[in-house]
């Protein structure tokens, strides 16, 4: 074993160097130098991560927990039951779970950085873009590597900031005609909605700190494992942390920001709003799996919210007409899958799906970016079509990712989705399983609807766009190809025993030391025939979804409109996104504005009024007193004399 894993603190620092370099000199340097710096720092972080994880793998499974501290951050006073002094370190920790995360974050992040050098080549603010991107990488790695909740929270807020900055990157451009938002508004919306979740997160964090006197993951989980903390407290903390995760990972009811986050440039959508940041909630919940295992009520909430989000978002994906919005709803839906997996105790499956989803969803977004790039900025899939011949590489990789997300054997999505479905079923959550299976069918349907509308049929835009449609440059297609191979092969690390005939689920064994032993995985060996049947069912549902999409959008494209008019109420419901934005407007925003107006009026009339009244009193007093100022010196002298006489009389009469 070498000592590379001792250098994990350097991993988040490396992209920060890129921030410093490009942030100070970026405007003077050429685009080539800026791009090379940005990609280079992320590549270095990736290589260092590889070395550190290799190091980690040399250790025996139970010893795979390497920490590195940059010193004490907060020496807190005596907190907690024992009254011992609590200390929060700038601590970083590498264990199998964070190992998976740093490899995904730096690996996919590097590919997206490379892609972005091509995608952003013609945009203003090239250097600014990469400063934000590198800062994001740094914060995301801090989030993942933090050895205590507070360091994670620093990263958590940092990625939120970068998300805000990057969503509003084209801050002066209009974004959504329906709501009249600009890109800057979309960024603000994301930031504010996240604040709600973060608020709960902080409360949960403080609750944990005051109860246990520590925020270190390992100490907290050890305390919980040895029976520390009351049941009610664990449930409360679990729920509070989950609300935080809901904000970051766009779950009901806080998912509304993610579709609007598509205002950001497409590489941002791929990196932040598909592959990495939005999965931070799943990561955090999984990281706390030992706590959730002792709070079954909280887990039930996680499972229900996750499953509901998976279905709910999938239906909205069916009617969306913006290529990126379809993918955004798809992301919300897939995140719901991950939470559902976490909620039923299939922790490995949640992280497995997180990883494969990072591959194929980043690929889908980058493919969509390539399409948008080739179409001169057009994002409406109703104005696309037939691009298969114009953009062969983009098409080939996009269809790979689509098959992967639909869960077709043997692509990555099949294995991870199947593991989640099996986890839900085998742990007795048949309702969750049914909802997820239905969502899987919908996912296959809307993804193939998207593919057919974009790449097949006749082009529906103007011929000018069609003539200019072209394949993207090498810097964009190469990352597509790499991600496509990962989308194919990424699932093979977690092939279930039933298919291979023996236990070759590397992924499961790798993660096991980091996670709470879930009941879903214990039962895995017992019901092989059921597992096989479920697998076939999931595959069948996906194929039905694809077939339906083929029948409608490939065979009879005109049928879509008539189906929409037949089911007008449902179509309107989905098309208008269940009026959730309007609901929030009516239920939260309007009362809030009304309250604000009330307080503004209170301030103006009562608070300011009190100040004004005191001024008026002084004024009136002055008006009365000025009558003594006659301007006649003799009057003053007379008053003076009277005063003297009065004082003399006083001293003469008052007895000593």
């Amino acid at each position, binding site marked *: 074993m070498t000592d590379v894993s001792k250098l994990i603190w350097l991993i988040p620092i490396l992209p920060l160097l890129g921030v410093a370099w490009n942030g100070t000199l970026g405007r003077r340097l050429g685009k080539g130098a800026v791009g090379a710096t940005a990609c280079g720092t992320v590549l270095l972080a990736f290589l260092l991560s590889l070395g550190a994880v290799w190091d980690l793998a040399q250790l025996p499974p139970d010893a795979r927990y390497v920490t590195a501290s940059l010193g004490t951050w907060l020496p807190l006073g005596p907190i907690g039951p024992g009254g011992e002094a609590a200390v929060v370190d700038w601590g970083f920790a590498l264990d199998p779970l964070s190992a998976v995360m740093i490899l995904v974050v730096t690996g996919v992040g590097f590919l997206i950085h490379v892609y972005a050098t091509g995608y952003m080549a013609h945009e203003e603010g090239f250097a600014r873009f990469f400063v934000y991107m590198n800062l994001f990488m740094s914060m995301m790695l801090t989030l993942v590597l933090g050895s205590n909740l507070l360091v994670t929270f620093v990263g958590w807020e940092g990625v939120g900031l970068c998300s805000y900055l990057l969503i509003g990157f084209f801050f002066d451009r209009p974004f959504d005609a329906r709501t009249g938002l600009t890109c800057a508004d979309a960024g603000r919306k994301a930031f504010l909605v996240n604040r709600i979740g973060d608020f709960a997160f902080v409360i949960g964090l403080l609750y944990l700190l005051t109860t246990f006197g520590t925020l270190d993951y390992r100490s907290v989980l050890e305390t919980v494992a040895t029976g520390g903390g009351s049941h009610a407290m664990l449930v409360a903390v679990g729920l509070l942390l989950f609300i935080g995760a809901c904000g970051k990972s766009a779950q009901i009811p806080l998912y509304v920001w993610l579709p609007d986050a598509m205002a950001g440039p497409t590489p941002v959508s791929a990196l932040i709003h598909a592959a990495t940041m939005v999965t931070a909630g799943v990561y955090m919940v999984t990281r706390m799996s030992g706590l959730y295992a002792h709070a079954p009520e909280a887990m039930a909430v996680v499972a229900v919210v996750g499953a509901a989000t998976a279905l709910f978002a999938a239906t909205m994906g069916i009617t969306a007409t913006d290529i990126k919005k379809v993918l955004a709803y798809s992301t919300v839906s897939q995140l719901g899958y991950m939470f559902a997996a976490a909620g039923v105790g299939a922790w490995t499956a949640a992280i497995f799906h997180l990883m494969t989803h990072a591959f194929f969803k980043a690929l889908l977004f980058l493919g969509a970016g390539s399409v948008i790039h080739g179409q001169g900025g057009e994002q409406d899939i109703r104005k696309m079509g037939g691009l298969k011949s114009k953009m062969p590489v983009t098409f080939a990789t996009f269809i790979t990712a689509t098959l992967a997300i639909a869960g077709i054997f043997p692509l990555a999505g099949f294995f991870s989705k199947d593991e989640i479905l099996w986890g839900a079923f085998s742990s007795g959550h048949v309702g969750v399983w049914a909802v997820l299976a239905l969502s899987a069918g919908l996912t296959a349907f809307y993804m193939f609807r998207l593919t057919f509308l974009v790449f097949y049929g006749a082009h529906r835009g103007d011929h000018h766009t069609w003539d200019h449609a072209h394949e993207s440059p090498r810097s964009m297609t190469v990352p597509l190809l790499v991600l496509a191979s990962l989308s194919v092969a990424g699932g093979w690390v977690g092939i279930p025993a039933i298919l291979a005939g023996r236990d070759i689920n590397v992924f499961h064994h790798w993660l096991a030391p980091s996670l709470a032993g879930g009941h879903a995985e214990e039962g895995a060996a017992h019901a092989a025939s059921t597992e096989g049947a479920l697998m076939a069912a999931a595959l069948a549902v996906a194929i039905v979804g694809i077939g339906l999409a083929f029948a409608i959008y490939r065979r009879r494209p005109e049928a879509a409109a008539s189906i929409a008019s037949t089911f007008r109420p449902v179509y309107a419901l989905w098309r208008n996104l269940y009026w959730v934005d309007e609901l929030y407007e009516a239920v939260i925003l309007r009362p809030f504005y009304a309250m604000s107006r009330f307080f503004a009026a209170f301030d103006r009339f009562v608070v300011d009024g009190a100040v004004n009244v005191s001024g008026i009193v002084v004024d009136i007093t002055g008006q009365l007193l*000025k009558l003594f*100022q006659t*301007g*006649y*010196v*003799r009057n003053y*002298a*007379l008053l003076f*004399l009277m005063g003297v006489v009065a004082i003399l009389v006083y001293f003469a009469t008052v007895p000593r």
Partner: protein
Amino acid sequence: MIDPRLVLVLSAALFSLGVAGVLLRRGAISILMCIELMLNSANLAFITFARVHGGPEAQIYVFFVMTLAAAEAAAGLAIVIALFRLKGTTDVDEISLLKW
């Protein structure tokens, strides 16, 4: 020796004359002179008490008052000259710049 009470009565009479002058006269210079009269009547009372009690303190006060009177006369006259240049009069009823 004269009866000190007679001298004190004289002092009080002079003081009252001064007060009456300050209150009734309109010319600024007359008012200043009346103030001098009041100060000097007070000096007379001090001297009288010094004579009665035989200590030096009251006489020291007299010197203070005389110094003050000189300073007051200098400052007062300077003000009166400035006022006269400004308003062309020394009638204090005409001078009411600070009145509302």
